[in-house]
């Protein structure tokens, strides 16, 4: 996938703005099993993340919003899930804030308040959200060790923002991938807050 990414980067202009760079040569939706397009984004602490940095890892990409009731409701449960994989070096959690007009400082303030341990990257211009066809927060994509999309959708099966669901789709997907098994439910519709896109 990295060769394709590099080719795509060479053929298309990378959009560089506010520490964000994403390839913009993906016109089609990324479906389960498809190679996940690369990105380069800066987190709230100033660290630059590229998907290629996590080659051979399992990467959880979670589109995030500090204002969304669904996000606020899921924060403690997501944090607990992240903690449960603390010793698992092959699992990487990355939040992505794609909302227009939201500063890194504001995101970081919420991140600290909510006890979020994983980095939150700023998707300037919601370009990566567009590429991934993300519409709500939380909306989660899991990239397998081969760089392909293994899961897309909801965090769990909660029926209201604050109440933890009985089935955690992300955990189930991660456990399957760590066991080199197929994800049983790779696509679950996510409900949540709409992404504030640039005009």
């Amino acid at each position, binding site marked *: 996938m990295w060769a394709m990414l590099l080719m795509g980067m060479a053929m298309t202009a990378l959009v560089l703005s506010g520490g964000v760079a994403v390839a913009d040569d993906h016109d089609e939706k990324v479906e389960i099993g498809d190679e996940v397009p690369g990105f380069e984004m800066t987190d709230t602490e100033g660290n630059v993340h590229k998907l290629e940095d996590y080659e051979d890892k399992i990467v959880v990409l979670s589109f995030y*919003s*500090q*204002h*969304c*009731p*669904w996000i*606020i409701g899921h924060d403690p449960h997501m944090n607990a899930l992240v903690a449960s994989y603390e010793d698992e070096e092959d699992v990487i959690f990355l939040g992505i804030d794609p*909302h*227009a*007009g*939201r*500063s890194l400082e*504001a995101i970081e303030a*919420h991140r600290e*308040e*909510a006890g979020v341990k994983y980095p939150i990257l700023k998707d300037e211009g919601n370009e990566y959200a567009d590429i991934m066809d993300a*519409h*709500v*927060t939380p*909306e989660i994509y899991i990239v397998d060790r081969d760089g392909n999309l293994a899961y897309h959708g909801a965090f769990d*099966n909660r*029926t*209201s*923002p604050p109440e933890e669901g009985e089935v955690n789709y992300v955990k189930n997907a991660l456990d399957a991938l760590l066991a080199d098994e197929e994800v049983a439910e790779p696509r679950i*519709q*996510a*409900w*949540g*807050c*709409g*992404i*504030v*896109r*640039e*005009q």
Partner: protein
Amino acid sequence: MTQNHTMETHISQGIVYLLIITGLHIMATGSLLGCSAPDPVVDSETEDAVTIEEAPAEEAAPEEAAHADGEPASEEVSEDIDVSALPPITTLAAEDLEVMLAEARDADQVVVINFWATWCPPCLAEMPYFVQFYEEYDGDEVRFISITADHIDTLDSAIRPYQAQENLPFPIYILEGMDPAPYAEVVDFALTGALPVTLVYDSEGELTQSWEREIGFEDLEAAVEPLLG
């Protein structure tokens, strides 16, 4: 039309209802969580015109920002509610909606569908406009259909209290399950999981206007008036 599982039997078990409103009271007042502006005709520099998400906290009014940051903005209200006087709440399968739309088409009715949920602040902010629209337009020429994405399990804890609190005058339909895909096919619009969504159909059943964001009464009027005879 076959509407499944009427909730009235369940609901009528208690004439006097303990209404527990958590957050809804303030959320329903509009201008909350920095969500989309009630007036959709907004400055082009704002993102409010295109999405249901809340505006940045730094741009929100103090009370909005406080709520946006997840601080308690709720209050508990106990109130005696005569639920038998409220419009029905029923679950709605995709095929039921299909029948409903076909009936409206046969009756040459313009149709407006609003997808919303009690957990969606901008949905609640725009709800007064739908109440106004329903009261002014729903009838022989126009059919208004209100569909909540709230889970059926939250009927007593969220949907019914909100209905009572806002005194919503129209029937409410509940999506069966959390999968919008079958409904998306029926309504000819890609339901992505983001709310609110409002759809307008002409009397021949063609989708003529759609929004995946909070709208105002003027939007509804502007979309519907040209379709009326």
